[in-house]
Structures are given as structure tokens and as C-alpha cells.
């Protein structure tokens, strides 16, 4: 084997794969083709455009910097790849008071607005793609209060105290002397007399981001590849 043949062989074998699984998909996924709702099939009309509110960019940065993705994923996989659609709250709500069953698999639009889709490495903790939706359903307007306490020390929540191994993020909070009235956002946690624990800017961004994770909105039926079949769910 001459060096020339070797170099050609190596360039072709690597270059072909590199072009077709790395370069091309990367740029293809960069401009997503808008998908339209179909009249008569879907309840909505126009172009599907997911709305996200919250400090997504800042919060996603805090999420990334503290390595949340080591233990939490953000994807509801189709049924061929796992039971995410059936696990309570992962893919949406089974019985949303207004919309009924909102569960659906993730789609490419769910990640728009961030630089890196935090798919995650393991599920040592639960999936978070619909965390905001779950918490809104269980805690309503107090969802952020609950989440602050949970981030401050996950084991303060009696529901998970016995088994959660989530790290506490106390460093995202500030201990401040109470001057005048206690802050509205002050956490209901043990602290020495005259002081209060309030969420810092990073904690506020992170909570805002986590509550924005509500990716169970209605999608055009052309995109809903594996709708949950009524009666067949868990």
C-alpha cells in the first residue's frame, strides 16, 4: 500500500461519513422548515410556532455550567425508543383540565432558542422536558417557590427526601440581613435569626428557564408521528 493510496482511502472513508452524518445534518437542522396546521385535521390553523417564555438563554447557561445534564435529560422519546410517553408527566399531562391528554414526543422546535440541545447523559434524575408543565399542574402559581426550595436543598421536599441524590444548589442563593420587611421571595428554610435566604440572579434565571420547559403544546398532526392511542396508555 503506497502512502498516496493510503491517504486517498483514509480521506474518502472518513470524509464521506463526516460529510453525511456531521456536516450536512448540522446545517440542515439549522434552518427548520416551518410546518403548517392542516385545516379539518388540526384544531388550530396557520403555521406551527412554539412559544417559549422565560429567561431561556441565561437559565440554560446556568443549567449547562452546573452540569445538570449529567443526570437529567430533556427529551420525550417516541415509543420505539422508550416508555417516555407513558411515564407520568414526562411527555405532557395525561389529564390536563383544559386540553385533556397533552402528551407528545419531542420535536425539533422544542429546542429552538438555545445553542445546544441539552439532551442529557443519564436519567439519574427524571426527565425535565416538561418540568414546567408538571410543576404548574401540581403547584400552580407557587411553582417557582417550590422550585427555589427544591434547588436550595432537594431533600427538604418530603416526597423525595428519602431517595433524591440531587445536589443542593445553595451557592445560587444569597443570605441577607432582613431590613424592614422580609423579602417576598425569601425561602421558607432554616436560617439564623434576623437573616433570610433569597434567590440570587443565577437561581432566578435557572428557575425561569426550568419553568419554561413546557413542550407539550399541540403540534400539526403531520408532525405527531406517534400520538398516544386512547385506552392504551399507562
Amino acid at each position, binding site marked *: *500500500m503506497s*502512502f498516496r493510496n*493510503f491517504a486517498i482511502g*483514509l480521506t474518502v*472513508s*472518513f470524509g*464521506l*461519513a*463526516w460529510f453525511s*452524518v*456531521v*456536516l450536512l*445534518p*448540522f*446545517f*440542515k*437542522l*439549522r434552518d427548520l422548515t416551518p410546518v403548517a396546521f392542516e385545516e379539518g385535521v388540526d384544531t388550530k390553523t396557520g403555521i406551527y410556532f412554539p412559544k417559549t417564555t422565560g429567561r431561556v438563554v441565561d437559565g*440554560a447557561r446556568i*443549567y*449547562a*455550567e*452546573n*452540569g*445538570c*445534564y*449529567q443526570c437529567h*435529560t430533556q*427529551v420525550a*422519546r*417516541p415509543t*420505539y*425508543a*422508550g*416508555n417516555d410517553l407513558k*411515564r*407520568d408527566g414526562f411527555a405532557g399531562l395525561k389529564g390536563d383540565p383544559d386540553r385533556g391528554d397533552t402528551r407528545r*414526543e419531542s420535536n*425539533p422546535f422544542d429546542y429552538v432558542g438555545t*445553542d*445546544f*440541545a*441539552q*439532551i442529557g*447523559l*443519564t*436519567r*439519574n*434524575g*427524571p426527565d425535565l422536558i416538561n418540568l414546567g408543565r408538571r410543576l404548574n399542574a401540581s403547584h400552580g402559581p407557587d411553582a417557582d417557590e417550590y422550585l427555589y426550595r427544591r434547588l436550595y436543598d432537594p431533600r427538604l421536599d418530603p416526597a*423525595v427526601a428519602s*431517595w*433524591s*441524590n*440531587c*445536589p*443542593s*444548589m445553595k*451557592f445560587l442563593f444569597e443570605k441577607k440581613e432582613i431590613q424592614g420587611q422580609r423579602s417576598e421571595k425569601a425561602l421558607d428554610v432554616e436560617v439564623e435569626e434576623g437573616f433570610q435566604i433569597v434567590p440570587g440572579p443565577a437561581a432566578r434565571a435557572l428557575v425561569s428557564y426550568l419553568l419554561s420547559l413546557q413542550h407539550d403544546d399541540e403540534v400539526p398532526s403531520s408532525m405527531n408521528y406517534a400520538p398516544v392511542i386512547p385506552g392504551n396508555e*399507562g
Partner: protein
Amino acid sequence: MATLENDQDTILRASIDRSLRHPVMFFFTSGAAWLAVAILLGIISSAKVHSPGFLDSCPWMTYGRVSAAHQTALIYGWGCQAAFGMAIWLMARLSRQTCRNPGTILTAGHVWNFALSLGVIAILAGGGTGMPWMEMPSFAWMPMLLAYVAIVIGSMVQFKVRPEGHTYISQWYLMAALIWFPWFFGSAHLLVHGFSGSPLGAAGVNAWFRSAMLLMLFAPVGIAMAYYLVPKVLGRPVYNYSLSLIGFWSLAIIAPWAGMQKLTGVPIPNFLPYLGAFAAILFAVPAAMAGINLLKTAVTDLEKVNESPTLRFTVWGLIFLLIFGLASVLLNLPSVTRITQFTISGYGYDVLGIYGFFSFIAFGAIYFIVPRITRREWLSRRLIKSHFFLSLYAVFGIALVAIFGGLMQGVGQETFTSAWEDAADRVVPYAVMTTTCWCFLLVSNFFFFAHLTLMWLRLGRRSSHPTLLVEPHHHDPHGPEGDIDNAGPAVH
């Protein structure tokens, strides 16, 4: 006449070794130091999985950051530097060229270490990028890439100007790794840092990059080294030469397609995960070809394998390579992926590849190369034996426990009728076991690092008898002493 040629040959080898002494020793000792850092961070991060309260008042020690820093130190601190040391030494030896730019390589090695140190500190300080194995902030990758080019450019030139004649299979593997690494490392970092607006595309590039590090840097360098060490120490030809060539080309054709199977079920074009899984499963073919070919060579003289530190480590590295190939098949079957995709199995698989297969061959190489470049023999067979047995059991432990534990964890996750608590509880015993194994590895690496440092300080035995792992026939625990000055023809 034959003696004269033999002498000239010996002198050439000795001068090649001398020319590379400082850069190669730098990469090995610095790599071993980073390995110690990686192990310490590994113990901390693993302990946090079962005892979340451990060190939890310190933001730098948050699980997510420590875990990322642990993997970064292991991959870029130990893995890459061990690979550089092996690659530049082996390419010089096989191309029969002395190193002409040791100063450049040494400087580049320091740049690599400096960028890496800043990167790891930044991760711990909370400046990580959030992309697995690419967590170092964006300032780090460009200096590292340039340092890499400065380190290996000499090796490429050596290959180009090598004397006419036979090209060894190890050289093909090395050349491939030297060309692949900057290509995938540079393009992956450029895509994710230089082009925003493709979150899923970036996640895909990242998944592919992680696979490429294992299959297109560590695998070819490890296999190249093993193809040199086993026949060399045994003094026997490789069992089947054409098999080794087929093995090389199958790796070149298969490995670049693997990686995206990590994103099964993620909304990216469907063919990507399937293609990735297919390639990852097929990786077993080049792994088995290299592994079986070399083990077939090794079994011809098991006594020698047992007494040579180099061969003990290398042969176990090859056994790990076979297990690694088998794990690639099992973990990437679609029916298994749906259970293990988001579990600790992935970590077990990575440890098996980096610390089982690659590092064992790297240890074998270090036990072979260091006496030649320092012209001193290893001091103590007990230190080598302790290093060997502790590493062997601990790495086996982590890999098996994490892969099997991940399977159990996945079953818990998939059983959607029971609470999430069930899946979380299933991890705990395996995490305890993993922490224990990392502690054993810390002890093991202490022996290795201390021994290597003594060699680096040139405090090794002045002897022409290599340190072998056989029972001595007399009372000296360090084996028979040989000639005090080993500058003569006895240089290996």
C-alpha cells in the same frame, strides 16, 4: 558484518530514544499526574451519587461540575497525553528517525497542559459549556489543537522520509489517528462554537465527537502500540499479517459513522441514530480482528507474557478490547438501547474503553518505553504488581458494575407503572461499588505515579536486566543486578 550492522542498529535505536527522552517522559509523567487528578475527581463525583451531602457546601464540588472535570481530566489529561507520548516514540522508532524538534514538542506539551489546566479550573469554577467531553470553555480548544499539530508534525515528517521498505501496520494505525484527531476535534469544536442556531445539530456533533474520541483516537493508538509491543517483546511475528490490514481498513470505514446512536429517539433525522448504532455494533469487527490476532500471537509464549510487565498489561488491554467490542454490540442493539440509553451504562462503556483497553496498553507501553529512554530499569516488581492487580480488578469492577447497573436502572426507568423512586434506588448499590473501585484505582495509580516519578528523576536501576515479574532466585527483592553501565550493545 552482521555484528557491525547490529551495533549500528543498536546505536540508532539508542539515539532515537535519547532524542525523545524529554518530550516522551513529559507526556507520561504529566499524564500520570492528570490521571491522579481524574481519579480523585472520580471518587468525589461517584461518592456524590450515593451520598449527595458529601462536600455539598462547596460550589466547585457540585456533582455536575466535578463529574465533567473528572471526565475532562481523564480524557485530555491522561488519555491524550499518553497517546501523544506513545505516538511520537513509536513513529520515530518505526520510521528509524531521530526526533529533530524535541524542544518544540516539549513547549507544545506545556501549552496543552496550560490550556487544559485553565479549562478544568474553569469547569470547576462554573464556566463549563455544558457539552459533554467538550466542557472546557471555548478559549481552550484552539491552543490545544495548535499544540497538537506542533506535537505530531514531526512524526508525520518522519513517516514521510522513512527509509524505503516495509511499512508496519502500527504506522498505518498511527498515521490514521494523527490525521483523524485534528479533523474531528477541530471540526466538531468549530461547528458547535462557531455556528449558533442549530441546537440539535450541535448535540449531534457532540455525540459523534464523543464516539470519535474513543474509536478514532484511543482505539487506533492503542491498537498500534499493541501491534508493536506483543511481537517485539515475544520476538515472534504477528499471527496473521493480512488480518491486521483488513482490521485497519474495517476500522477506517466503520468508525466515522458511529456516535449518533446516543441520540436515539431525539428529533433528528431518523437515519442518523440507526446508522450510528449499526456502525457502533460493527466496531466489534476491527476490535475482534486486532484483539484476536494479537492474543493468538501472545498465547504462543504465556510464560513470557506472565513475567513481562509490558506484556501483562498489554495482553489484558487486548482482552479489554474484546470486551469493549462485545459491549459495543450489546449496548447498541435497539432493544437494549431503549433500556440503557440514559443510564450509567454509558459511563461504564467509556471507562471500559479509556481505562480498560486504552490505558492498560498505555501502561504496558510505559513499562516498555521508559527504561529505554531513561536508560534505567524499573525499581521494584512489587510496585508494578500492585499497580497491575489493583488496576485490573478495579477497572473490571467499574466497567461491569456500571454496565450491569445501568441495565437494572433502565429496567426501573422503563417500568412506568412504578414510581421514579424505584429507578433512582436501583443506582445506589452500583454507585457505592464504583466509588470503592475508584479508591482502589487511586492506590494503584499512587504506586504507578511514584514509580514513574523516580524513573523520571533517573533514579531507576542501572542495569541491563529488565525488571521482570518472576520470583527471584536470591534474596534481592529487585531482581538480579546487571552491568552498572548499560551503554553497550545490551541497550534494547
